[in-house]
């Protein structure tokens, strides 16, 4: 129940739109029942061969319901889809806002494939919470109560039979169905995530698998996962099919019972003969109200399974937070210092850095050299406050970075590195990220300084060329230089370059480093590298010992 309440909060949209959608749903359903009932009354009454004028009201009613039903249904469908899509936007936004402070350190442990499964399937599943899972029961309740009430006016006994039938068909059957299906959905979700992860890997590593002759193996692994999912799907079918069958059974038996009751009452002279067929048709049509309920129950249990996983992720509290009373942002030209820092990643047994001390004076250019695994990248994470030290402290302008707002700390630095993400967007969008208000000239200037200007100018699409998922349309060197150009565009006081010359030949690497150092005269630069190029340009070279 708490899960449901929290999901409602997460997906919440203006109540007005929801009320409109539900009201239209009630109308559409009620008109369908009324059409059959009024037609039944019309025919029964006509069979008594009264003057034709006395049938006028019934005839008008039949025609009205015949016309109004499709109109109400049309607007109901539009309103409910609109509602679901609005929910989707909100859920995605809120979900993102919650996980944003967790990145990157606390999201590290999520598999890419599984994370994808969560985002796209789970978050999207929540869009139907109101209109597909919670709405139909409400609409059914209103319409079914109306049917029972109308029946009760003429035959309380038949009303009781109808009420019992509707309750069993509308509550017991869907509950049973959703119980069985819920279990299947819980089994299916991990199988689905597993299959996605397997597929992502098979596609990403396709070439290596082909060359190393492992394609058939991964193919059979995907096949196994796929068949496993299919097997679970079949079990699901057994349960959903049973729900439909039970619903048909309950409806048929209820109509039979109502028939028996009204015929008995008519024999006893307690009921107008005209009402025998009318009430039987009302009972028959009223089950239209509960027909969507097993589907809604299934939708609800699926949504809850997905929702629980979404909430699970949302509930993680970020460990890195702004202080209650942040100090004013540091001056642009400030010394940066690591003081006897010990750093460890969450869940890792060993330290990534132990007792590192490092000081960057304003305007100084320092190269940090060290073998792989010596913790060079950890230094950038500490400076950007993606990771807090276990012991020791990181200071900007003499104050611990934990005293500042995170955004003020990060504004001090611009990072270009091996882990920098290149977005599946245009070159322009990838650059503008660093400075949204940058002019066209600013963009070209940054590209030129990263020695990428000529290349971009030679592209048919220019700045509007798409770079592909994770920049796959670019070569390693182009990617690298794009991230450098982005960092230069940011125009922050301190430039952090994490292995900017990987994938570049010695000549280009030296040129790039030289250009960067020239372009950033007066700024602090920390160049993290394992290569010798450009080291002579640094004011100081520090070496990190192996881990």
């Amino acid at each position, binding site marked *: 129940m708490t899960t449901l309440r929290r999901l409602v909060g997460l997906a919440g949209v203006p109540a007005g739109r929801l009320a409109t959608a539900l009201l239209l749903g009630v109308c559409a359903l009620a008109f369908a029942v009324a059409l059959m009932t009024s037609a039944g009354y019309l025919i029964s009454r006509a069979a008594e061969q009264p003057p034709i004028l006395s049938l006028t009201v019934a005839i008008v009613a039949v025609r009205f319901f015949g016309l109004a039903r499709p109109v109400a249904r049309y607007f109901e469908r539009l309103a409910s889809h609109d509602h679901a899509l609005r929910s989707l936007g909100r859920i995605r936004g809120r979900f993102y806002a919650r996980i944003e402070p967790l990145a990157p350190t606390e999201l590290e442990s999520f598999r890419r494939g599984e994370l*994808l499964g969560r985002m796209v399937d789970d978050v999207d599943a929540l869009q139907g919470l109101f209109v597909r899972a919670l709405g139909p029961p409400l609409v059914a309740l209103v319409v079914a109560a109306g049917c029972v009430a109308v029946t009760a006016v003429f035959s309380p006994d038949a009303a009781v039979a109808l009420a019992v039938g509707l309750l069993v068909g509308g509550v017991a059957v869907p509950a049973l169905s959703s119980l069985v299906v819920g279990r299947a959905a819980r089994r299916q979700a991990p199988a689905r995530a597993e299959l996605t992860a397997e597929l992502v890997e098979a596609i990403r590593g396709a070439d290596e698998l082909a060359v190393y002759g492992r394609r058939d193996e991964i193919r059979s692994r995907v096949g196994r996962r796929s068949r496993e999912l299919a097997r679970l799907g079949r079990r699901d079918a057994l349960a959903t099919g049973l729900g439909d069958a039970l619903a048909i059974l309950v409806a048929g038996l209820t109509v039979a019972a109502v028939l028996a009751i009204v015929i008995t009452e008519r024999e006893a002279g307690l009921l107008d003969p005209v009402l025998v067929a009318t009430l039987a048709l009302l009972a028959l049509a009223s089950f239209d109200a509960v027909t969507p309920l097993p589907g809604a129950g299934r939708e609800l249990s699926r949504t809850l399974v997905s929702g629980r996983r979404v909430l699970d992720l949302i509930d993680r509290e970020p460990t890195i937070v702004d202080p209650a009373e942040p100090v004013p942002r540091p001056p642009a030209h400030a010394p940066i210092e690591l003081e006897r820092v010990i750093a460890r990643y969450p869940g890792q047994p060993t330290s990534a850095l132990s007792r590192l001390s490092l000081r960057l004076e304003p305007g100084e250019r320092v190269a940090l050299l060290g073998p792989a695994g010596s913790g060079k990248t950890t230094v950038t994470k500490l400076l950007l406050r993606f990771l807090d030290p276990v012991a020791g402290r990181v200071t900007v302008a003499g104050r611990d970075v934990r005293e500042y707002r995170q955004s003020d700390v990060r504004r001090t630095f611009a990072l270009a590195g091996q882990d920098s993400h290149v977005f599946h967007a245009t070159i322009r969008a990838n650059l503008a990220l660093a400075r949204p208000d940058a002019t066209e000239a600013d963009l070209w200037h940054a590209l030129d300084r990263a020695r990428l200007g000529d290349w971009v100018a030679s592209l048919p699409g220019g700045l509007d060329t798409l770079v592909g998922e994770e920049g796959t349309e670019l*070569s390693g060197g182009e990617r690298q230089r794009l991230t450098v150009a982005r960092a230069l565009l940011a125009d922050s006081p301190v430039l952090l370059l994490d292995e900017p010359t990987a994938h570049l030949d010695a000549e280009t690497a030296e040129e790039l480093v030289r250009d960067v150092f020239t372009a950033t005269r007066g700024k602090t630069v920390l160049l993290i590298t394992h290569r010798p190029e450009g080291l002579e340009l640094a004011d100081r070279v520090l070496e990190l010992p192996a881990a």
Partner: protein
Amino acid sequence: MLVADAVLGVVAALLVLAQAVLLARVAARSFDGVELSVIWPSIALFAAATFGRAAAAWGFEVVGRRAATDVLAELRLEVVDGDLDAESSADVATLAVGGVDALETSFARYLPQVVLALVVPLAVLTLVAAIDPVSAGIMLLTLPLVPVFMWLVGRSTARRAQERWRALSILATHFLDVVRGLPTLRAFNRSEAQVERIADVSDRYRVATMGTLRVAFLSSAVLELAATLGIALVAVTVGVRLVDGGIGFESALVVLVLAPELYLPLRNLAAQFHASADGRAVAERLLELADRRREAAQGTLSPPRASEVVVRLDGVSVTYPSRPTAALADVDLELLPGETVALVGESGAGKSTLAALLLGLVTPDAGVVSVGGLDLSECDLEAWRARLAWVPQRPTLFRGTIADNIRLGDPGAAIARVRDAAELAGVCRFVEALPDGYETIVGDGGRPVSAGQLQRIALARAFLRDADLAILDEPTANLDPASVELVLDAIEAARSELTILLITHDALLASVADRVVRLERGRVVRLTVEAA
């Protein structure tokens, strides 16, 4: 299976007709004053028909799904076989998992529904015509409207569904891309601005979808109107004729109860058609992907060993469909047995394409790649690749242990050989310092591995291979000088036994080669022959 499914569906539908007739009979007789004691067998029959219907409906659902799931599991495999390089992995995975499920719905429901839509209206019409030809005439007049509107529904939804799926997968990639790039966004203080952007993209998606739905729903609303108006029309005319005595009460009731059943299968079909439009759009994209199969080994010739014969490229050109200029243009190159050749050049000069040619991952648009005089495209690619070692520029780390990752090229290799390969690649110190050593789980969700370590693991993979030709694509790009030395030593130790193609930016690495070949914009520009 599908036939059995349709038969079950038809049985269920015919039982509905039987129920309608029974219901009308019971109500009409009671109206006429017949006692319950006489009527009850009909009520019992009505209840019995209900049981039959329920059983048939259950069978209909289960059989339909079973038929569908098996076919669809195979379809997912087809996707893995397709040439997916150009596609984004997230996009394809979404399609193959979520999309195939959408297909399942259409597959399971749509086809049997078509049979029902043909059989049931015909049965209803025949029955009504026997009872009351006038009503049958009215029904016949309204019925043609249904297929007309269905066609309209189909035409607008099929096209729009295709667009919608594309929009959806772009949106899916956008959202994932943003989440993947979160560290970078945060580093630039731009992550909070993305909340707005996500809302904006979602909103654009909503507006676009609502636009298509307004049209799609309009067609189905008109279709529904034909059905409800048909019922109203039948009810009113029958009612008026009852007053004149033109029709009996029981006949009138049968006709009224049957009227909705005439339109119901057609309306269900339209609804399924709408749902299946999603499914068909998915199916088309999946089949399109599966069709783009890699040009797998058509050849059957057994390739000679690259360490014993000349591997040559003769006037080879390659152009990728997505790029305007040729990746390689008229390239000639010879790799002599046992030779170490360095391939240098700017990023994008075509070096990796040349490697892909030798690996059989790309086929030339013009020219020939040959091994000891045999055209590579006529050779058994499996056998050729079995004697290759390859370190790609951006290696993939697979989910599993480090040992499994090194064993990629030789799954049966003993752990001692894995260790030797790791030592050669300079990754053994890193691995052995881990608590679980070679059994450490890496890849998505496992222990994070840096780019440098990944490169070393890929090198170890190559060293473990018993290869005749090694293709090393920037093997030292992420390595520190000490590790580069190690790689140089390994190359030095192995060079006498195999042919090596070294793709590199590193002058030091290129200097160990017997020969340096320079590529510029897809062409060989300079051949430097140096004394070894």
